């Protein structure tokens, strides 16, 4: 700019200088503003600003650290169960559970897996569910397929009025609510906490998925590259536990495969533990020559 000024005649220089002033005013003002903003920020939260500044250099690795498993002692399922059953001795059978922690090979900033599975052998004791919706409708069929024990409108009302309440959860479809209110079941179901209401979240459109959820579906979620979930009661046989574990791993693999093509997510390690026991890294085998018979690893 200044070099232009030197070449131009003095008259023109005057014009240019006026331009320059304008320019400078414009260019400087935002700079000041930004400075002031930064300073204000600095006073408010010093730390976060420092982090943002040095983000690129301090961010750390892109992926979660994975250790080489060759140093880790790994166990067959039956052997791990043998240890865990020893650790859980004398604990309340219903309270103690087998748990699994599945370590993923994944990026820190990638999507996380979150899903619900139904085990072939239920971990929680299942509850009997009643669904109030027009019988013969699509919802009724779906609810039955999802595992509700009692589905319908008038037949449910009659049974309840006759004093036969053979369920511990009750859901209703919005279409049936008028009929439900008309039947006057509030006096019977209300005190037992079974009366469906919008407030309690028991009057819903998608009855079937809710039934599925209530019936022993387990929600799992990846946190810091690890998925942890209970997979069995302590009395389970190794075969039952194997089935549940297989379902879990397949479900996770499906989820991983369903992600974006560019995202690579794999299972790194599977660790079996129990409520009061340590974690045993599994090597994927069912049993070894030293493991006891599977019947010895079942029950109390």
């Amino acid at each position, binding site marked *: 700019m200044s070099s232009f000024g030197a070449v131009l005649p003095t008259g023109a220089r005057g014009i240019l200088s006026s331009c320059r002033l304008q320019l400078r005013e414009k260019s400087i003002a935002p700079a000041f503003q930004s400075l002031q903003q930064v300073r204000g920020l600095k006073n408010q939260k010093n730390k976060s600003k420092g982090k943002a500044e040095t983000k690129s250099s301090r961010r750390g690795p892109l992926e979660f650290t994975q250790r080489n*498993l060759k140093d880790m002692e790994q166990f067959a399922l039956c052997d791990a169960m043998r240890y865990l*059953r020893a650790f859980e*001795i004398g604990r309340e059978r219903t309270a103690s559970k087998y748990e699994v922690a599945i370590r993923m090979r994944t990026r820190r900033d990638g999507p996380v897996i979150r899903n619900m599975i139904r085990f072939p052998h239920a971990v929680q004791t299942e509850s009997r569910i009643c669904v109030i919706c027009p019988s013969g409708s699509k919802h009724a069929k779906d609810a039955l397929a999802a595992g509700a024990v009692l589905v319908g409108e008038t037949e449910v009302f009659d049974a309840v009025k006759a004093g036969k309440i053979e369920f511990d959860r009750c859901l209703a479809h919005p279409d049936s609510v008028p009929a439900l209110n008309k039947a006057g079941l509030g006096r019977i179901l209300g005190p037992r906490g079974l009366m469906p209401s919008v407030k309690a979240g028991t009057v819903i459109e998608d009855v079937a998925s809710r039934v599925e959820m209530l019936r022993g579906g387990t929600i799992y979620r990846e946190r810091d590259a690890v998925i942890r979930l209970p997979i069995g009661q302590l009395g389970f046989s190794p075969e039952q536990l194997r089935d549940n574990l297989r379902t879990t791993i397949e479900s996770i693999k499906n989820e991983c495969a369903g992600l974006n093509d560019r995202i690579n997510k794999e299972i790194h390690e599977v660790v079996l533990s129990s409520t009061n026991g340590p974690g045993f890294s599994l090597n994927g085998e069912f049993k070894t020559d030293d493991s006891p018979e599977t019947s010895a690893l079942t029950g109390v």
Partner: protein
Amino acid sequence: MVNLFKRLHKLKSLTNTPDPRRPHRNRRSNLPNPPNSHKRIPPITRLHLTYAQKIYGGHQGARHFWRRVLPRLKYHNPHVPITVSPTTEQEGPAALTVYFHERLSSTAPGISGPKPVTDKYAPAPVGEEKSAVIDLKNLNYEEIWRRVQASTGAESYVLSPVDEEDLKKVADVKARAPGDRARNRAMRQAKRDQERMLAEARGEVEKSKQT
């Protein structure tokens, strides 16, 4: 998850150490079961332990027996169901019920203590089972184990060379641990000190800028 070394050490120290609170690949015990039962001693079908959760009234030994011995027994005898009833009755029984198949061992009655105890928490013998109750009050867990051995003919597990080596490794790590811990603590403290100094210095600069 914690790093592998820590995990492995913890696992090893739980499953292997010489005096652990927890199971034990190495010590204690094979209860007689059909293949290795003696003529003198019939096979054991199951065990039941009752004790009160607090130690007053002579329940300490029974509680320790549960913590220290039962896990190992269970590990070495996975086929024997073992049940435990922790009660809140300090005056109640502290007893181990041993269920024999068909008949009692010849030593069982002599071991059960001066006066016979009744354990209402123990399940009743089923079918051909015969049960003997050992009174555990005011006994320490080693004494209890000796009595169990005497009445059931249980044999202690003999350490293999591999087990010995594992134990030695765990003991080595344990011996080195205090030194390592001190060194790590010093390193962390030094880092913290330096950060604090830097923060203070930065604060001074800020102040001088503002004034």
